[in-house]
């Protein structure tokens, strides 16, 4: 069991390192650098940046160094828990990301909770009452949920909100609270804004998990231990909740690891559509303006979240599955 834990931790570390490499490569792929993007932007605003100035800027930001040097400089910062300065914002990357990361996580976790909260009971219902009306309806809705790309859903919700309900569903705060320091009132304001994006974000995941839960549970329901449990005189509810649901939950735990990046990825794009102050729009923007340190830090953070999620789901699996705990299964 300890060996398993160590193996998993080591794996997480290696994966994290690999992510730093991949991240760095991805961000170096587009042609040009931040100064190019900056010069282009300045031009659009009617200001000339001379070639000499561009060179000076490049030097000031270390963009004239080799990729290896830049990578290791960044890695060094990362290892020390720093992430450097955002070129564009002129602030430490961590500050720029600041609240946005927490809002992203809040949104994602909210979405995951909603996903699970809806998917589990619906999945159980659908499996137990396979081919019933309810199952058919949920199955259909589930597929619709899978079929509507969430940005499209966000667009539609925006449209409906605007045209029919006369409300703007974008953003996470009312104008009055944009600026305010954190307070209970602001938190409440945030809570009021959260449901729509969370539901949009949760929809696809919910649909998917309902499918998984239903399939898993259908598998489990066919297993002999269900028959024997029933034959022992347990009530149907007890039989199902104690045995097959428990077993069907097992592979579920392993989905956490992937649910998190999936949700976070989804949050990036719906945040762009709904103008949510999460890391999504920041990431998109940093990629376009080639704000290297900002972009790579965000991707790295999301990657690490994923690794943590995977680790978490491994640990959870270990905790809930005696076969793994007792070393029967790897």
């Amino acid at each position, binding site marked *: 069991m300890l060996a398993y834990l160590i193996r998993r931790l080591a794996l997480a570390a290696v994966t994290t390192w690999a992510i730093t490499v991949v991240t760095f490569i991805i961000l170096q792929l587009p042609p040009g650098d931040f100064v190019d993007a900056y010069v282009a932007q300045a031009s659009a605003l009617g200001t000339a940046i001379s070639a000499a100035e561009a060179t000076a800027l490049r030097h000031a930001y270390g963009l004239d160094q080799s990729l290896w040097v830049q990578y290791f400089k960044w890695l060094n910062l990362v290892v020390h828990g720093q992430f450097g300065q955002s070129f564009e914002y002129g602030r430490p990357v961590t500050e720029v990301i600041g609240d946005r990361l927490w809002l992203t996580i809040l949104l994602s976790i909210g979405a995951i909770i909603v996903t699970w909260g809806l998917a589990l009971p619906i999945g159980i219902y659908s499996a137990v009452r396979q081919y019933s009306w309810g199952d058919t309806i949920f199955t259909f809705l589930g597929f619709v949920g899978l079929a509507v790309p969430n940005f499209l859903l966000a667009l539609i919700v925006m449209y409906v909100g605007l045209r029919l309900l006369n409300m703007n569903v974008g953003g996470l705060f009312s104008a009055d609270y944009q600026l305010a320091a954190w307070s209970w009132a602001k938190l409440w304001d945030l809570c009021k804004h959260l449901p729509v994006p969370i539901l949009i974000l949760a929809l696809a995941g919910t649909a998917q998990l309902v499918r998984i839960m239903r399939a898993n549970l259908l598998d489990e329901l066919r297993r*002999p*231990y269900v028959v024997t449990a029933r034959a022992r005189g347990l009530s149907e509810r007890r039989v199902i909740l104690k045995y097959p649901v428990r077993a069907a939950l097992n592979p579920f735990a392993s989905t956490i690891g992937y649910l998190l990046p999936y949700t976070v990825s989804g949050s990036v794009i719906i945040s762009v559509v709904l103008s949510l102050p999460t890391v999504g729009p920041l990431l998109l923007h940093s990629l376009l303006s080639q704000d290297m340190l900002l972009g790579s830090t965000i991707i790295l953070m999301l990657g690490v979240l994923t690794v943590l999620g995977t680790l978490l789901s491994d640990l959870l699996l270990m905790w809930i599955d005696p076969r793994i705990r007792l070393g*029967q299964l790897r």
Partner: protein
Amino acid sequence: MADPILQVRDLHTHFFADEGVVRAVDGVSFDLFPGRTLGIVGESGCGKSVTARSILRIVERPGRIVSGEILLRRQTGAVVDVARLPVDGPEVRAIRGGDIGLVFQEPMSALSAFHTIGNQLIEAVRLHARLNRKRARERAIELLAMAGIPRPADRIDAYSFELSGGLRQRVMIALALAGEPRVLIADEPTTALDVTTQAQILTLMRRLQQQRDLAVILITHDMGVIAEMADDVVVMYLGKEVEKGPVDAIFHAPRHPYTRSLLRSIPSVLARPRSRLATLSGSIPHPFARPGGCPFHPRCPDKLTGLCDTTVPAEVVIGEDHATACHLYTTQDAKVPA
């Protein structure tokens, strides 16, 4: 002989699938007596397991009991028709485990891997007896000991996958007896076990039957096990009973061509579903495509063309407690001693 504890009368359990209706059990009747063992034998898919599940009312959708009676004499002496009880009602639940215990063929998958055997056993104990946790645990250990499990106090906290196949089957038996039932249905209890363990389990079952005056329904495709264990035998083919009678009569004077084929195929009748029987021509038809007339006629070496393939044979009594459903035998033949 004492009154039967369980009487099954013309039981029909059908599965209603989109492709058609599967008559998994199509008219089965038998009596079961305390202290005696009834063997139900037949190839896979012949309906023997469905019969067992029908008795416990745990047939899964889309299957359901269409007609027939399952008369159970409960411990109170009252006789109830299990087939008429609400399927998940309290009475049926009390009967399951309380009056009738079930032992399943796959001890590995018949136990939850996520719960200790103690957890499952204690649950079963407390379901049918008002005991506190501590007493229930003691009772569970007793049960394990009774089922011949060494070091039961340690084993109670183990998971099923930590035990050997034989021990698992003993756990299953302990579990089946946790509610002190008087009827035990053992559905292929030894199929998954090696020969030595098989013998041990059968011995255990026989011992427990004697100790508790249990009525046992033993479901198997293994004629050897039947010969060793059963007092009475029902031979099933495609949901119908083709022959039934005392074990001696069946073994020494089998009448139905199918029974005869089965006996000829001893010892290797480990038939896989829909595969060829060693000595039987043809394979079991698809359940949706049951042949007309006598279900066995496509494979029957003695079939009477024009009769067997058009008319379902009625059951004919051909001896004391010995009956068969075959056109080869008429009521006249019945008088002919075997």
